[in-house]
Structure formats: C-alpha cells, structure tokens
C-alpha cells in the first residue's frame, strides 16, 4: 500500500468516525430534548392547578366553571374584596394577624430550643445522650394522632384552651424533633477547628454557641424558620381543636369557615381568598427555596 492510499484510508476512517460521532451527538441531543420536554410537561401538569387557581380568582362566578384556560376574559377584582371582607364580622386582616401572632413567637422559641438541643447532641458527651437521640428519632415517626387527646386534656387543666399557648409552648421544648435532627446533621458537617481555637482563647460553652456555632448554623436556621413558618400557616388540626372563638381564628380555620358556612359555596370569593392565603408561603418558599430544599434533602424530611 502506498503512502497515499494509506492516507486515503485513514481519512476515510476519520470521516466514518466523525459521522458516527455526529450521529451519537444528534441522538444525545434528541434524547436531551425529549427529557426536557417530558420534564416541562410534568412540571406544567403539576403546577397547572395552582396556575389555574390564580387565573380563576379574577374570573366572574359564571366564568369559573366550564373553562379550562386560566386567562380570564375580564379581570374582576370584586371576588377579592368580597372574600377579604368575609361573611363574618371580621375581615381577613384579623385572621392574618392571628396567624402571624401564632407563627412569629412559635418560630422564635423553636429556633432557640432546637439550636440549644442540637448543640448538646452534636458537641457534648453526657449521660443518656445515645438513648435521648434514639428517642428523638423515634418521635419523628410517632403518629401524632395518639397524643392529641391527652395533650388537649393537659392544656385544659392549664386553662390554655381557646388561646395560642397550646400551639406555641410545646415548640419551646424542642418537640419539633425534625428540626433538631436537621440541625444536628448540619453541625456534624462543620469542622471543629474554630471552636477549639476559641476554647483555647477562653470561651465558655455558651459564648462558643453564640459567637461561633450560631453564625455557622445560619443557613440551617433559615431553613428552620422557613419550614416552621409554612407549617404553622398550614396547620389546621391544632387551631381546629384548641380555638373556639372566631375572633382568634387563624387563616386556615377562617378559610374552612368561608366554604363551610353556606351549602352553596361562593366559589369565586373562596378561590380569591385561597390565593391570598397561599401568598405568604409561596413568597417565603421562593425567597429561600434553593437553600432549604438542600437541607430538606440532606436530613430526610417529613411532609
């Protein structure tokens, strides 16, 4: 074979290889496109009920039914006004205020108690630590329904019924063990060099917690705040059991009332007010999502 022929063959081989490569690339691109479109279709299917809900909140009562499109023909804000006023003597301003009056103190005591306990579990040796940790994990799996009745009786003895204390006080004792678990997992991943250095400099354990641990824990604490906020806003069972005065109702109970009051549900205003009720949670979710989905994933979450 002459050098020229060999070169020719080599060129041919290279061409075949290149063609092959183009084919694979094309196939891969087609696969990628397929995957993207499947995912997009899925995401749309998942979110469409919510998108539709938002659109429907601007529709008139007659237009809501029988239209699968989400874009209203005429924007009509009257359902919002009507829903906000409610058929009770209080407006949703009261109910939102109530929800925040529960959520804010609850978040504060949750963060403080859970950080303290997580610090103990992650950084100290003490009597019964292993057992307590096991109990903590076990309570994450304990069906809450079994504690409802005795807790109700306890809070009745304390004279706490028809108030927010039954919802807030247990959180001050790190009973939302999921958060403790999440914080412990996070703390275990943080190297202890800084703390050791600070200890040599004469920091006591409390100073260590405040000046070193808490700043490092900040991302995890944000997750605790976000989850506790959304879960407290969603919480329906506890207010349902403990609150009896309409004036003290949070948003979740007020919403239930707005569709339970009459046989014929006033859909347009119920829908408008549902959108408003979801807004705080959605806003918090998008503000922090990147961040707290990660911590949810790493600790194994409920919900």
């Amino acid at each position, binding site marked *: 074979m002459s050098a020229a022929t060999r070169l020719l063959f080599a060129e041919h081989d290279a061409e075949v290889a290149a063609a092959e490569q183009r084919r694979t690339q094309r196939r891969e691109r087609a696969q990628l496109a397929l*995957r993207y479109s499947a995912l997009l279709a*899925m*995401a749309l299917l*998942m*979110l469409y*009920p919510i998108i539709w*809900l938002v659109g429907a909140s601007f529709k008139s009562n007659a237009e809501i*039914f*029988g239209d*699968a499109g989400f874009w209203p023909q005429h924007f009509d804000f009257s359902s919002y006004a009507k829903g906000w006023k409610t058929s009770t003597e209080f407006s949703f301003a009261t109910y939102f205020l109530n929800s925040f009056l529960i959520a804010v103190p609850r978040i504060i005591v949750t963060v403080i*108690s859970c950080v303290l*306990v997580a610090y*103990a579990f992650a*950084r*100290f*040796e*003490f009597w019964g*630590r292993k057992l*307590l940790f096991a109990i*903590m994990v076990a*309570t994450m799996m*304990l*069906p*809450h*329904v*079994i*504690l409802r*009745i*005795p807790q*109700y009786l*306890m809070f009745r003895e304390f004279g706490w019924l028809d108030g927010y204390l039954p919802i807030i006080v*247990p959180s001050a*004792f*790190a*009973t939302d063990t999921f958060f403790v678990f999440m914080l412990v997992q996070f703390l275990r991943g943080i190297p*202890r060099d800084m703390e050791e250095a600070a*200890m040599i400099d004469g920091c006591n*354990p409390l100073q260590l917690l405040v000046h070193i641990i808490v700043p490092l824990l900040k991302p995890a604490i944000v997750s605790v705040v976000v989850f506790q906020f959304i879960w407290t*806003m*969603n919480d*329906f069972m506890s207010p349902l059991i403990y609150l009896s005065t309409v004036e003290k109702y949070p*948003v979740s109970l007020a*919403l*239930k009332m707005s569709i339970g009051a009459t046989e014929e549900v006033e*859909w347009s205003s*119920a*829908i408008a007010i*549902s959108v408003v*009720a*979801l807004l705080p*949670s*959605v806003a918090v*979710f998008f503000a922090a999502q990147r961040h707290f*989905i990660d911590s*949810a*994933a790493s600790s*194994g*979450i*409920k*919900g």
Partner: protein
Amino acid sequence: MYDNKKVGFMFALPFVLGVLGFKLFPFVMSLALSFSQFEVFRSPHWVGADNYVQLATQDPTFGRALGATLWFVALAVPLRVGFALFIAHVLNFKLRGIGFFRAAFYLPSILGGSIAVAVLWRFIFSQRGLVNIVLGTLGIEPVLWLADERFSMWTIVTLFVWQFGSSMVIFLAALQNVPTSLYEAAELDGASKWQQFSRITVPLITPVIFFNLIMQLVHGFQEFNGPYMVTEGGPLQSTYLLSLYIYEESFRYFNLGYGAAMSWVLFAIVGAFSALSFWSSRYWVFYAGEKDSKR
C-alpha cells in the same frame, strides 16, 4: 467532644422536659384513657377492654373507616414514593435549570397541606371543575368525583400523591451519590435505561427507599386535611378515614376514651407496618459497607 457532662445536659434540658411532658406523659396517658370511659365533663372511669371490644364487635363505622384507611394507604403511599423515585431519576442528570424543576416539583408538597389547596382540590374535582372540563375535551362523560363513592377516593389519593416533592428531593440527594462511572460501565455493556435503573439505581438506594416508605406510611395513615376538607368523608363514608373518625369522636362528641382506643388501634397498625418493613428490610435493603463475606 467537650467532656463537660453537666453543661451538655443543661443544653439538652429543654428536649428532656419536652419529651417527658409533651410526648411520653401524653403517650402513657392515652393508653390509660383508652381503657376508660371518659366524656369530657365527667370524671373518667375504668372500663377495661370495653372500648376495644366495642370497636371490634359493635361498630360497623369503625370497620368501614379502617377499610377505607387501608385502601387509601395502599393506593397513595406506593404511588407517592414510586412517583418521587421516578421523577428524581429523570431529574438526575446534568441539567440546566435543575433548580427550576426541583422547585416546581417541590412546591406542591410545601403548599399541599394547607386548607387553601384543599379548597382548590374540591373545586377542580367538582362537577364542572377543571378535571371534568379536560375529560370533556377528550370526549369522556363528566364524572361526579365528589358524589360517586366509586371515584371519591381518587380525589384524596391524587391530592396525597401530588405532594411527592419532599420524598423526591431526598431521593435526588441519594441519587447524586451514585457514582456515574457505574452507569458508564453499564452503558458500555449494553444495558438499557430500564436495566440501569432497576439493576443499579434501585439496589444502591434501597436504604433511602426504605426511609421514605416508612415516613410516608406514618403520614398516609394520619391523612386528615384531604378527607376532612375535600370530600368530608363522603359520599356514603367512602373516604371516611380513621383519622377523621377519631377526630369527630374525640373533639365533636367528646368520647375521649373511645377516641383514645381508636388512636391506639391506628398506632398499632402503623407500628405493625413499620415493624414489617423493618423485618423485611434485611432482604431488600443493602447498606454500603456491608460485605458479603461477613454473612
């Protein structure tokens, strides 16, 4: 780390008190209550196993509620976990905009527990709601989702499955730890996508599947908002789950002893299922680092 036992215990003290006061004490008390007759404004008196006997022999509602609960869990939990795993698998590749998809699939499980979403669900499954509109365009007769006991269960099952996001992100995190070299090797050996999924992905993340299954079982057995708000337990009690019956018996009619007995039955069932999963797990869950030679 810090060998300061007293200080460590002090920091853990809130939890110790919380567990004793708000978990352990109520736990024991509810067991005691379940053996008593207790209407809320009269003092309780001991009735032995009467509540349980009545549940088993004289309460057809309980039997129906139990059946509905088991049916609900059997449908909703595998669907939710399976869906979560499937979507996580599809999402697990180098993907632009992964943050968007992850958030989109996660959002329903954040909002799904709220009453607002229950309102939405009731609405889209109503006679002229979104689901029937879509079916109509496909030429299917409208279905009375909320009024027909053959279909009502599906409204709350879909609501539960819709919230697969939290399981999904856990799966996704686990999948990202599976070395890609395994898939590359399998690809070279000519394994199909399905084979790669069933022979590599699934076996490697069985511990996570196990964890999600248990957590979702616990949630599924306690599902309340869906049946309470969307179907109100109806029609013909077809979606009257145990959690609903317990709530009404305890906090509407204030038969606290009877309610406690029912919640203990529910607890026992959840416990039995968890125990079954734990027991069976040694046959199908494989933890990394366990060597065959050890057996």
